[in-house]
């Protein structure tokens, strides 16, 4: 069973407005590489020049911020729910 990615708000444009995209991958970074094959703008918009996640983007795997796990190396298992969302909120 693949992992399910949801891109919310303005980030949805990165996957051509789709509500959910499914990816077979073993890590978040691997999934983004796979998605890059389908959506050419994705990596450029989500990642900083050094390949790390852009500071204004948050990725949650099953509601947990990947920065509290292994960042882009965070492992994925079948059926994981991944939410990609802007970090410009709160305070």
């Amino acid at each position: 069973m693949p992992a399910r990615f949801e891109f919310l708000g303005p980030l949805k444009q990165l996957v051509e407005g789709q509500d959910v995209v499914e990816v077979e991958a073993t890590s978040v970074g691997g999934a983004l590489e796979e998605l890059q094959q389908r959506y050419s703008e994705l990596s450029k918009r989500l990642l900083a020049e050094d390949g790390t996640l852009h500071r204004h983007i948050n990725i949650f795997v099953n509601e947990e911020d990947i920065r509290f796990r292994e960042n882009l190396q965070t492992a994925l298992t079948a059926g994981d729910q991944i939410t990609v969302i802007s970090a410009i909120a709160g305070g």
Partner: protein
Amino acid sequence: MSQALTCNTCGERTELKPDTVCPSCFNPLEITYDYDTIGGQLDAEQIAGRSASMWRYAELLPEVNGGAPDTPVGWTPLIRARRLGKALNMPNLYIKNDAVNFPSLSFKDRVVSVALAKAVDFGFRTVGCASTGNLANALGAQATMLGLRSVILIPHDLEQQKISASACYNTQVVKVNGTYDDVNRLCTELTYRENMGIVNVNLRPFYSEGSKTVGFEIAEQLGWRLPDQVVVPMAGGSLISKVGKAFGELVQVGLVREKQAAIFGAQATGCAPIAALVKSRGEELTPVKPDTVVKSLSIGAPADGHRAARTIRSSGGWAEDVSDEEAVAAISLLAETEGIFTEAAGGVTVAVTQKLLKLGKLDQEAVTVICITGNGLKTADLVAHRTERLPVIEPKYSSYTTLVNQKETAYAGTV
């Protein structure tokens, strides 16, 4: 466009609308103004004749259809803190006292005033927020005043006083099993899945502009001059960034003479990601899981953390953090010296001021303003130990005189 939502990274400009993220590069949007026009039209005399509220600076706040709200939010006292100044050996010390802000006794009344004015403009019928407590109180009160439906999402373990106050308003309080950062993520999802005006998500560019009025008022109350130093508590990092923006805008429109006020940030050690970034002299902020009694500053992944660090560094300031014990002791210090009862965040700000002095980061002689952002009644349990040894007497004069004789030294100044 005299005002626009402008991306602070790629510079793209759009009209004012409920949005917080640049559609092109996903960086934060910021409201920009036509400072040349404002500078040519606005002067100190005009402002002096206006109502005693934060909306006296309307030209430097988001435009509101139908005019600025008439609720008396802001214009809180700037106190010359002679007794605290004597205790700290700072002869030119001031307290900006938002513990008495209207209507809910914290600086959050300012940001909510702007956010809800714009929520009405944009046609939202339901508003909401993710809150560490003070914002919940402010949103509950002002949404009630405006007749808006509101939903307040909070971490389940906030101080009971803040939850109780929020629950009394005409609002729906929802406790979330998680940290503030969990609540914040949920609210961001709500923004995009429901048609809601979340004040610190899709209304955030407007909301955060309200914080500038702390800086405007400090300058006006000092006689239209900027302080030499200001100490500001940090949670999401928005307030300190906007105080910096406010000082810059006052220079740009000619209301004060150009000067670099040094801006200092204060956090609790149990949640100090911005102070850690400043002290590391690095570039990237490391989020933390909060572990402190200072709930109102418990944001482990602060949205404006980088901006706050830039504001501090470019001003020549610094950031520090203090333990919960130091913060609680400083609540008492402020109350004992100035008669101002502040919440835990205020204790952090006073205690960090003490620490910055000890480290030689603050100039003791300089005109310094400490920003007190919330009222002590909201976190009164933290100082409950002060009541443990209070004397209890019979309702007889003889009981009173016996007590006074026993406590002669302690009571000498008051009897």
